[in-house]
């Protein structure tokens, strides 16, 4: 597990700092006051059963859902006060947010590249088309691509602005195992070579173990466990991360005890 990076003055300089983040819908608590950080070069897995609050957390970080309480800072910039500046440093890919199917791959990348202020845009698009094996689809409308190809386009969009904070919500859900492995390697290399961090949700525990430096187990809107995905199972007497996941999802109190 990587530790948060430090500035010259000794203060921690996290890519993402979430403090006491809470989201309520009336009496229903979707996220119940969670705090966590993502450090530079770190890949953090946000795990939990359906409805645990993972996507709600990601939506709040992306500024499309207003928290009931708490603060979110991206590279020290408060998303509620300086939304645009914070989001310039961020990007995301989610299995439920495909890019418009009536634009070609290149048109979509140009549209979002302009919004993110990417320069030089044409070179960056050419580079990403190459990286994500999309060159032959550059002038194809996204709507006619296979779901795996569309996922690769979403990931290319997510990398357009070389984000300091990359949010990935089940990014490999529709990819075949070979492509998924390739994509995981790309994202891991990108995190190691750059200065950014990644927040990654997945239900594939093999993937999480392979990619993440640290995981946060979310259940009923609370962080139940946090630690190294390779060591956590044995620390809680489980044989695998998947077994630990199932226990957290079904009997969280046994873990708490």
């Amino acid at each position, binding site marked *: 597990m990587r530790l948060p990076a430090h500035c010259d003055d000794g203060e921690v300089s996290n890519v993402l700092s979430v403090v006491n983040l809470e989201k309520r819908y009336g009496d229903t608590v979707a996220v119940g006051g969670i705090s966590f950080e993502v450090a530079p070069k770190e890949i953090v897995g946000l795990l939990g059963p359906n409805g645990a609050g993972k996507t709600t957390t990601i939506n709040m970080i992306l500024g499309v*859902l*207003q928290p009931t309480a708490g603060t979110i800072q991206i590279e020290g910039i408060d998303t509620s006060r300086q*939304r645009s500046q914070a989001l310039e440093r961020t990007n995301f890919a*989610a299995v439920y947010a495909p890019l*418009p199917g009536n634009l070609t791959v290149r048109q979509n990348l140009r549209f979002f590249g302009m919004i993110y202020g990417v320069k030089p845009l044409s070179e960056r698009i050419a580079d990403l088309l190459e990286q994500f094996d999309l060159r032959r689809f550059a002038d194809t409308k996204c709507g006619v691509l296979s779901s795996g190809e569309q996922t690769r386009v979403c990931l290319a*969009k997510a990398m357009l602005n070389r984000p300091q904070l990359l949010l990935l919500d089940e990014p490999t859900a529709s990819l075949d195992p070979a492509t998924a492995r390739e994509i995981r390697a790309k994202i891991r290399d990108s995190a190691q070579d750059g200065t950014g961090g990644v927040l990654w949700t997945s239900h594939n525990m093999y993937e999480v173990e392979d990619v993440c430096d640290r995981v946060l187990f979310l259940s009923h809107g609370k962080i139940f466990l946090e630690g190294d995905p390779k060591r956590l199972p044995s620390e809680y007497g489980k044989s695998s991360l998947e077994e630990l996941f199932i226990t957290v999802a079904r009997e969280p109190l046994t873990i708490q005890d």
Partner: protein
Amino acid sequence: MRWKRALAIVLRQMYLLRASPARVVPLFAWVGIDIVLWGFITKYLNTIVTRGFSFVPTILGAVLLWDFMVRVMQGITTAFFEDVWTRNFLNVFATPLSITEYISGLVLSSVITSSIGLIIMLLLSTGVFGLSFFAYGIVMGAFLLVLFLFGIALGIFAAAVVLRLGPAAEWFIWPIPALLSPFAGVFYPLSTLPAWMRGIAISLPASHVFEGMRAVVASGAASSAELLRGLGLALLYIALAMWFFVKIYSIAVRDGLIARYSAESVT
């Protein structure tokens, strides 16, 4: 405000127009049909009334101005609907794009699309039916400006309604111009209306334009006070529409509607 972000919205619209005849044809087809239809109606009316009076500047000119305002409004709503139809809100609003930049992009897109409609209408009305804009003088520019601004206000308001109520609310939006037209006095003076309708009519910028237009045809000059009232009202409506859109957007962000827009959770 970064104009490049607003221009991204315009570029997206241009990509869509370029690739789709279904988007290009409505830019000129309906306004063209309107001008041809009303052009022949005015020609016929000219044959049955006192010689010397022409319906062309009052009726055909009014149709042209009204259709221009409707095209401005629809230019904004159609560009907005592209994000509705492709379920693109999450992708768009999770970027650094601000609401002002987004709305500016929609307005710029509408400037282009409504200009195409205006050019077609001008060509048809002057070339085929002899409508001369010299008859209105330079005040024609003021008429177009007020209607352009009012069209923007209506477009922003309509987009906010759909943002709040969900994709099906699109069907509330298309009839808005038809709903306003009896009050706007497009074809008749406001004095024709009953008092309660006149009360509503004077609050609409468009009604001041059409009163002004008829004054130009009748006496050769429009009241500048009337035009200023129209301009002031149009600017006020833009400010109110922007406030309304920002308010609706804030509610959508609070309630999670941006991320789950298609759920149409407002009942």
